[in-house]
Structures are given as C-alpha cells and as structure tokens.
C-alpha cells in the first residue's frame, strides 16, 4: 500500500468520507463544523471544490453524497443529475447541500453525446459551481452519528444518540421537502452508523448495544420494521457495509454484510433471502402471514484479526470485492476473499495517520478510474492510498 496523497483538510478531527457514485468528488466531515469537497484528481493534485460552512453549531459527524437519479442501475437520461450532499451534525440537524445547474450546460445542444458527458463531468466537478444549503432537517433529539441515502436517493436515513433511526422521504430531483416516514427505536443504546444496501431498500444499523439490526418496509402497510438482528460482537458495533451485487465475490442467492466492532473483530454475515414458509403457508393461520418477514442471518466468518484496538470503519469494494478496515490502532487492513468463505489479509498499513486514530475508510475511484482507498483521521487529514 502506498500513500498517493495526504491532504491536511481540517485543523480538528476528520470523522467521515463519502465519494459521489459517478463523479470524482470526495466529501469530508469534521469537528471544525465544516465539510470540504475535493476533486479526486491526481492530475490536478486533488483541488478543493467547495467548503461547506456556517450551517452547523457543532461537529459535522457524517456525510454522504446522494446517488444519481434513478440509481446506478437505471440512471435517468433525460435530466442532468446534479450532485447533492447530506451532512449529519452533533447539533442534531442534517443539512442538505447542492449546486445549481451550471449556465454553460444550456449551450451544449448539438454536440456529440460522449463529448457532452465529458463536459458535464467537468462542469459538475468544477470549483465554479457554487454549493449552497438547500434544506436543514430537524427532528432528532441529540447528536446525529450517521446519515445514508438509499440507492434511489428518495430516502435518507439518519441515526442518533437518541437511540432512534429516522427515515426521511424526499423528491430525489428537487430535494424540496423531507417528510419523516419512520422512526425506528429498536436499539437500546446510541446508534453509531446506518447504511443502505446498494441495490435494494434494506437498511442496516450498528449500535453501542453490540448489535447490528436490519430493517425493511412491510409490503402490506408500508411500515418500516426490524427484520433481523446480528448478535455476535462483544462490543459496540461501529460500522457496517453491504456487499454490492456486482462485486466479484457476490452471489445472487445471498446478501452479505461486513461489520466492525470495538471487540477488534471484523465479521461477515449472510442471509439467503429465500422466502420463509412458502411450502406450508396454507397450514398457517392467516394472522401469521401478515407478520413482517423476518430475515434469517448467520455469521459467515470472522476476518483474520489484524487490529489491536477497536475497529471503527469498514468498507466493501464494489469494484474488487475486497474489504478494508481501519481503527483506533491506526492500522489500515485490506482483506480479500480467497476461495469460498476463506479470507486472507492482502495488505496492511500501520500508523496510517501517524499516532492518530483512523475514523473512516472508503473505497473510491479516482478521476482516471483507478481504485484507491481514502482514510480520515483524528489528525484532520484525508489520506489516499494506492494498492
């Protein structure tokens, strides 16, 4: 593993990172109450595109870019998708940021289709596009720890120290109104992290109560309900990440999730999403059929132990199927699947942020298409790594 670039982003802790799904944009979150957006371009030395400030009274704890309109599988072609970002803060609010349609876009008629796409990308990642605050969502009682968009961009989940997860519904094009459609209070303690499945409306949350919970919408009455609990970690679960269905190791029959915990382990869980009770459904009383379908999850494996202290963040690569984890000990560990269910450590980097803790790791694609790792640490830096 080699350091491509270390960006001294913030003077205080950097907590979280997010990359836009189709654009080379990277966003940060920091105790200094700001979020910074960078262009993931090695050629132009990772320039700052925007600094989002003056809207939060306390730390920005979490950031995530909204997925493109229609999701990545069915992108919308008749409207240009404009990037947008959600920031969750310890001040218990969520800010939504976006850019206006660049004026230059309107003068592109008649150009070659491919050229247009290229120009679009350049314009949307240009520092000339001004990022502005579009909405401020209030509702949580205390510190927000994580925010996550579903794959279609019409649902935003947020979790907080108030032990609840809220799901907000919005129009993914205009982001005008955010209506609360669910408040989930299954966890008994602070909720550290939420994440959505990359291609279906399945939500996972990690908590100080040592569990991961999964939620789905009931098909009959649209209510969101907990459909699974992952028990196994011996400490706070800090983060989880779903395997992408287009990732090399994935199979159609099962959903997999990786989780990182205070107990120093990283675990993989899987669920074969076969419908329960389809064979003897006639024998069941009708009352049982209307119960939300529970998912059956099992612990597939514990990844080779490589952290000496709590593991704070984990990320599953869509491109290469590898998993990366970081934590309190400053290590970055990269695991790869070697045959069925057998995971080995492919690479490891110690002191990734000097003596500081590493709070977040994500897989990202640089402007030239190269897969890289991005990490954020207590030193306020964002480091980019080549494998």
């Amino acid at each position, binding site marked *: 593993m080699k350091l491509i670039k270390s960006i001294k982003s913030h003077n205080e802790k950097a907590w979280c990172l997010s990359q836009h799904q189709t654009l080379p944009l990277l966003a940060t979150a920091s105790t200094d109450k700001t979020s910074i957006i960078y262009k993931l371009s090695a050629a132009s030395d990772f320039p700052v595109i925007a600094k989002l400030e003056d*809207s939060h009274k306390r730390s920005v704890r979490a950031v995530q870019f909204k997925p493109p309109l229609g999701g990545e599988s069915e992108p919308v072609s008749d*409207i240009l998708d*404009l990037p947008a970002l959600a920031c969750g803060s310890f001040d218990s609010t969520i800010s939504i940021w*976006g850019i*206006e*349609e660049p004026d230059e876009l309107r003068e592109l008629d008649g150009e070659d289709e491919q050229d247009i796409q290229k120009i679009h990308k350049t314009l949307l990642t240009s520092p000339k596009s001004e990022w*502005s*605050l*579009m*909405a*401020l969502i*209030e*509702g949580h*009682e205390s510190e927000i720890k994580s925010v996550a968009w579903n794959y279609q961009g019409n649902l935003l989940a947020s979790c907080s*120290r*108030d*032990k*609840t997860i*809220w799901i907000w*519904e919005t*129009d993914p*094009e*205009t*982001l*005008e109104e955010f*209506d*609360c*459609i*669910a*408040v989930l*209070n299954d966890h008994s*303690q*602070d909720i550290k992290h939420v994440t959505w499945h990359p291609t279906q409306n399945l939500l996972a949350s990690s908590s*100080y109560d040592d569990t991961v919970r999964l939620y789905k919408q009931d098909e009959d*009455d*649209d*209510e969101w*309900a907990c459909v699974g609990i992952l028990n196994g970690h011996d400490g706070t679960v800090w983060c989880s990440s779903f395997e992408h269905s287009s990732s090399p190791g994935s199979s159609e029959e099962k959903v997999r999730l990786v989780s990182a915990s205070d107990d120093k382990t990283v675990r993989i869980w899987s669920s074969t999403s076969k419908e329960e009770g389809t064979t003897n459904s006639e024998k069941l*009383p009708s*009352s*049982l059929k*209307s*119960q939300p379908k529970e998912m059956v999850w099992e612990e597939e494996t514990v990844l080779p132990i490589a952290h000496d202290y709590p593991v704070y963040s984990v990320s599953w690569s869509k491109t290469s199927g590898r998993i990366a984890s970081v934590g309190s000990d400053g290590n970055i560990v990269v695991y790869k699947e070697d045959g069925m269910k057998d995971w080995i450590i492919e690479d490891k980097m110690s002191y990734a942020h000097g003596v500081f803790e590493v709070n977040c790791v994500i897989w990202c694609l640089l402007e030239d298409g190269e897969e890289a790792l991005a990490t954020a640490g207590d030193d306020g830096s964002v480091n980019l790594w080549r494998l």
Partner: protein
Amino acid sequence: MSAILSADDLNDFISPGVACIKPVQNVSGSKDGQQDEVEIQIDQDGEPLEVSKADGEASKLNPAQISLSDCLACSGCITSAEEVLVAQHSHNELTRALEENRTQQTKKVFVASVSHQSRASLAGAYGVSVAVMDKLLIDLFVAQMGFTHVVGTSLGRSLSLIYEAQNIIDRKTRGVSGPTLSSVCPGWVLYAEKTHPYVIPHMSDVKSPQQITGCLLKSLVARELGISRDNIYHVSIMPCFDKKLESARPEKYDGELPSPDVDCVLTPKELVTLIEENTNIYSLIPPHTDITKLPQPASMSNIYKQVAPKTWPSIELAWASNEGSSSGGYAYHYLAALQLHLMASDPSVYNPQEFELVTVGGRNSDVYEMRLLFRKEKVGSAAVVNGFKNIQNLVRRLKPSKSTVSSNPLANRRRARLAKANKSDDSSDTDQADPSKCDYVEIMACPNGCINGGGQISPPGDVSAKEWLASIIDRYRSIETISLFDSPDARAVSDIIHWSSQFIDEFNISEMRLSKTYFNTVEKPTDQAALLLGTKW
C-alpha cells in the same frame, strides 16, 4: 407515548431525555431558619445526617423527592416521572386506598369513570361483548370494591366535543391564522410544550373527557351525598399511561374547586394486573363461569342507571359513543358543527342537501383530511394525525420559516423543465391530505389513535397486532352512538349545553374551570454539565 411508562414498547414513541436535571429543593428543618455551616455524614445505618459545625447537633436528612408536577414542569426527562407515577397512580395505590378505607373511620366515597376505548379493549381481551364487559366492570367496582358510582365518559366527551367545535368555529370566524390543534392527548401536549413551544398558540385549550367527567362526577356526587369533594376518590380507566400525567396537572382555577378531579388513572392493563394479583378478593369473571356462555344483558340502561349518580343528566350520556375516529371523533364533530353553524347563519342559502363530506387520504392511514363541501366548494376542513412521525411532519410544517435556506434552485429548474415539456406536474397535482392547511387537526400521539393506546391490552401471542387492533375497533364501533350536531335540530347539543350551564350556575363554578386547560412552555435545559450527566456514548 411515554412508552417508557409501560412494560411493553410501542413501536412509535417519543423517547425521553436521559437525565433528571431538576434541581431538588428541600425545605431545611432548621429551627430558627438560621443557616449554620453543616457537614453531611452517613450514620451506621447508612442514613444521611446533617451535622451542624457550630453546635455539633445532628439531624436526619429527608430524602429528596420529586413530585409529578415537578416532572411536568421540567424538560429533562420523563423517566423520573415513571417512579412518581407508579407511586401516585398505580393499581397498588388503588388497593391501598380501598384497604385504608375499610380500616379508617372517615370513609371515602369511591367513584369510577370508564373510557370507551378501555371498555372495548377489556371486552376484546376476555372475548365478550362490550355490554357484557360493562356489566362485569360494574360488578367488580360496585359489588366487589364497594364503589358508589360508575359512569362512562360520554357526558364529558360530549361536552368536550361541543366546546371544541365551538372554539374552532370561533377562531375561524375571528380569522385566527393557521390550524387549531387539539389538546386532548396529553402525550402530544407534553411533547409540544417541551420541544415545539411555537405550536402552543395553535392549541385549543378545551379540556379532555377525562377531566370534564371528573369535575362533573365529583361535584354531583358531593352534592347528592352531602359530603366534601375531598372525600371522594375518583378512579378513571383510560387507554393510555399519559392520562396519568394529565390528571396530575394542577388546575389553573384551583381556588374554585380544590382537590383533583381525578385521583387515580388506571389502564386496562393495570386493571387486569390488579385483579390477577388479588384473585382472593376480586374477580372480573365470576368464578366457575364459562365466559362464552355469559348471557347478553337484556337491558343495560337499567344497570347503567342504577350505578350512575341520580342527577346524572341522561343515561345515554353516560356510556354511549360518538361518530368519527376511535379517538373520540373530534375532527368529524367540528365539521358537523360547522355545517350546523352555517345552516343556522343563513338558512335560505345553506341547504343541508347541498353539503358533502369527503375524506382525502394522506401518505399513510394515520394521516387524513376531511373536507366539508357546500355546492362542491370547500367550506371547512379537519385532519386526523396519529403517531409520532406524522406529528413530526406537521410540527415542522408549522414552524416559522427559517431564513438560512435560500430558495431551492432545483425546484425552480424542475418547474421550468416541466413547463417546457408542457406536461402537468403529476406529483404536486395529486390531492393529498395536508393537515397544516386545515382549520383543525385532531392529534393523538399513538399510532391509530386512542384505541391503540399504550395502556390497552396487548394481543395474545398467536394473534397479529393488526388483527387484534381491528377486533378492538370492531368492539368500539359496536357501542351505541349518540348523534350530537347531526341529530335533528341538534337537540342533543342544546340539551347538553342547557344542562351544563345549569350545572355551572348551581355549583357556582366557572365555565373556565369546567372546560379549559392551559399550557406551559418548558425551557430547554442549558446547563451542559447536567445534560452530560445523562450522556451515554
């Protein structure tokens, strides 16, 4: 809503804060009021002592106590209220009071009022009709526990519905902007006071059936028996734990009638627990009885009559139910009253045949809007909003607009694009309920409203929550209803109003005392140290 007060978790609740931040004040027992320097010590029994540094005199310290009214006036938490409630409003408290009454010389008179939703819940739990359950409850209270009177909460509810409708029509006529919000759900009131004080000007200050019933019941019984109100102990059976909080609210017009209108609030769950813990004394179902073979009572009205105070206006008004939602039908009754009001204001124009009531659904079954149309034009609207997440969306819409967010450029772009494409914007044209734009909103903190209150009996293991609720709603709907505004000439309304003004005159209490509540804005705690006490990471 305060699911924390209940053994079961509701799936939709407002989570309380963690720490009690109420500064405890203890009246010092110092004789001359002079403050010596003191030292706190613990004696050999582990009791705290206060030792004066001046003369070495030791005095025992009383444990600090927080009362329910302290909790209500504080924004810290509802968790400490739990213990207070258990002490003041528990089934043990009722059995203790009954026991005390047997042994003491000055006897208290026990009276009970039973809400419609609780009757439906208990009937469902025991698999009997509401009439059979009423009979069993009356038997339990009167024959076994020695209660003097038992009534339903209908009279109180009818008055609450009438006052509420008048209040909204009055506000609408005066041109008060924004919707009037109901305040009969104490969970919602507490939440609004503590976290969204800006909605308080919108709140209707009409009292709930529980409190009005209490005021009437105690006054009438006191007069009939020639005793003081203080000697009457009123038990109210309610579907929700938060009703305890409501009954503990100090009266604003306390000078007129001291002593609370309701002494003990029990939920159906707690009533069942009370019976189960005292099977040697009490039983809801007579021993050795096959409950399925209990005969349907021939005429309940005789039974109702026997146990109601003699001066209770009409037996119908003791136990009957009302049209509209199973929370009491507040939204529906406002529109019925509005139609009547319009017809009375100009009978030549407002022909009853030309009115129409339509219901518009919201994003889920717990949000809907009813519109009163006259010649197809909307003349009034009322919405029903149940459950925390729907309340959230409503209060956020009512919040005074923030200036930090600039106008949304993407929305403009979308409009421009759609205008260009020359097709209608389907999503904004669809007619969806918007409670924030209605005249009135009936708000209940529990999903599905009061019929699904936190104190109602949970379904048995093999029955789904949905089916169970449906069966309880069926039972609620089986209770005979009385028409108020939609009765011919609204006779029932004028009768009730006539009766209540007589009551007010005879008892020399104000209409305010009988029918009006009040709200507090509770200041958010600002002491960071106190907040951190409750912090769990």
